[in-house]
């Protein structure tokens, strides 16, 4: 659990982060959204003390993050940034091993962990381990950056626009990979982005920052349904709201009794995907199948339209 209490950062006369308090539950993803200059990156960097706060406290599992020297604290927290920041003079395997080496793990353990992470990220350790970062594609570099951040099995992972430099297709894949890995390791993730779509998709909770202040900190559905201010409403994007709301739900949860013709949609797909399919194929209903391929029922255009309306 991460408790941020009244944290403030001032540079001379400018207040970059202004009295922010929030609690991030263990094994969840909190996404900090805001425009550039809103203080979201500074807030993130105060958690691992790359930036020292002017006032306030950050507690990790109850312990003040100033109880350790900064560099030791940072070795226990994963850190991944936009443009990945891989070391160009070190191989992929050496890059991933950075923190374990700093922590003095023995060679066998480091190798086992590097191989495990590379396999997890669909990079063959034999083929990719000895390569240099510039020999990889952008998507591969990003995956190595996240693997490096996770190398020392941190409980907490800080990510600053980790998908910012990726093209849309690779970005979607990277987001799915991260969600899967978060489930697997149970890592608490704090992710900074300016993209509300990404925030709604990834976050268990979303924190909206504006001009250094925390404007709203709530579940995605809550942010969509009841934006706390005009700023949050603009950020959500009025024309996108119903679709974002649908993208939060799974088809499985919108199933009605009955049958329909045509290709079935998996129950795990998002309701937004189902709506898109209905609109595109011009049908009023789609059959839904479970993970085992058995029919679950159907999803209808009317039902989805009702679900996309503002919650009461």
């Amino acid at each position: 659990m991460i408790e941020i209490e009244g944290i403030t950062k001032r540079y001379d006369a400018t207040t970059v982060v202004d009295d922010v308090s929030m609690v991030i539950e263990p094994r969840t993803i909190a996404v900090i959204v805001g425009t550039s200059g809103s203080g979201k990156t500074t807030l993130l960097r105060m958690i691992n003390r790359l930036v020292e706060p002017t006032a306030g406290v950050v507690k990790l599992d109850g312990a003040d993050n100033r109880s350790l020297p900064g560099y030791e604290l940072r070795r226990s927290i994963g850190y991944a940034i936009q443009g990945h920041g891989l070391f160009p003079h070190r191989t992929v395997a050496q890059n991933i091993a950075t923190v374990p080496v700093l922590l003095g793990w023995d060679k066998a353990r480091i190798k086992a962990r590097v191989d495990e992470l590379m396999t997890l990220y669909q990079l063959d350790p034999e083929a990719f381990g000895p390569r240099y970062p510039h020999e990889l594609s952008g998507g591969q570099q990003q995956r190595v950056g996240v693997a490096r951040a996770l190398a020392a099995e941190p409980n907490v992972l800080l990510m600053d626009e980790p998908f910012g430099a990726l093209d849309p297709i690779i970005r979607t894949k990277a987001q799915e990979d991260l969600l899967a890995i978060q489930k697997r390791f149970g890592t608490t993730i704090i992710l900074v982005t300016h993209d509300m779509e990404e925030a709604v998709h990834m976050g268990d909770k979303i924190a909206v920052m504006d001009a250094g202040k925390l404007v709203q900190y709530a579940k995605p559905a809550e942010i969509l349904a009841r934006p706390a201010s005009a700023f949050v409403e603009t950020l959500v994007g009025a024309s996108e709201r119903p679709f974002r709301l649908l993208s939060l739900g799974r088809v499985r949860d919108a199933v009605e009794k009955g049958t329909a013709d045509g290709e079935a949609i998996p129950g795990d797909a998002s309701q937004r995907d189902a709506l898109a399919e209905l609109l595109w194929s011009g049908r009023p209903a789609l059959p839904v199948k479970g993970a085992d391929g058995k029919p679950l029922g159907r999803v209808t255009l009317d039902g989805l339209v009702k679900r996309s309306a503002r919650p009461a």
Partner: protein
Amino acid sequence: MPIRFDKLGVVIAAIAGCAAFAAPFATFRANRIVPGQARSILEALPPAAGPLLLAIVVTAALVALFKTPQQLRLAASVAALAALALLIGVAGTFLTPAGNTFARISPASGFWILIFAFTLLLADVLTRLELSPWARVGVLVAASAAVGLLLISGSWNDLSILKEYANRADSFWAEGSKHVTLALGSLLAAVIIGLPLGILCHRVERLRASVLNVLNIIQTIPSIALFGLLIAPLGWIASHVPGAAALGIRGIGTAPAFVALFLYSLLPVVANTVVGLAGVPRAANDAARGMGMTDRQRLFGVEFPLAFPVILTGIRIVLVQNIGLATIAALIGGGGFGVFVFQGVGQTAMDLVLLGAVPTVALAFAAAIILDAVIEMTSTRRREASPA
């Protein structure tokens, strides 16, 4: 197939043609200081060798002129250079009257221009072949070995520059080692002082501008003026600081030369260290800090290795510059190859000037090639993907 000309080859062929037919190949002088008489290729070489050399030169020039395979161009340039190197020695023997020890035979403008033309061709071929750093050093070693063999074999012994060498063999090596010690020693001192100074300038922004400005000003002082400026303070130190004179510190001699070369070396070392460290990607630095590297680990593990090629470039500039500048040290009694240059100028004996100048140029050239290769090896760090 249409005949196509090579652009650089046209120039090389034109230069070679002029040099072979219109310029003198060797100069004959009755003794070492009288003006010489020019000798063309056909006059300077024995009856069979003259036409042979002309044939080789014309053939190589034709190979250069047209678009020909790189291997052929390589062979042509090497053959032409080898023929020139061997036959200038033959000319020396041929032109020296039997038993005459005063006559001096030296290579003349035509020889040097031909050497220049075919070196240009060779350099062009080697560039286009995109040799690896090791291969380039290999070429340098092979060329040095070839020159060394020619020197040992004695085939150049009748040339004027080697006659000057024969008279000064002992002092040649002594001055040579002094020259190298001066150039390398001042470089080493500049690296020992300059690297930490550069790191400090990178970390402390306020220091950067003032340090670089001072070093810039030093760089603009002409070398002879700097030697002069150093005479007074070093002389004062020698007579007032106990033990300083015993260490060899004096107003003239090696000490001021060393100090001046050191001061000139500081700017490239410090400036390139600052530029190199500033060029380290921000993201890599941020990631290093974010993952818990200490400042020292970041400096030695990330910043320094990434800045190293740029720092090496500074060291290369300094080394080449110092090898040349060390020649001036002779003016204030600092020794080095400059001794022969200034003696030669004083005696109007050009061969003696060459005895000092040629090794200096060769040393600087070799240093540049070796350091360029090292820089390339450290900066690419490309490893072939290991076969699965």
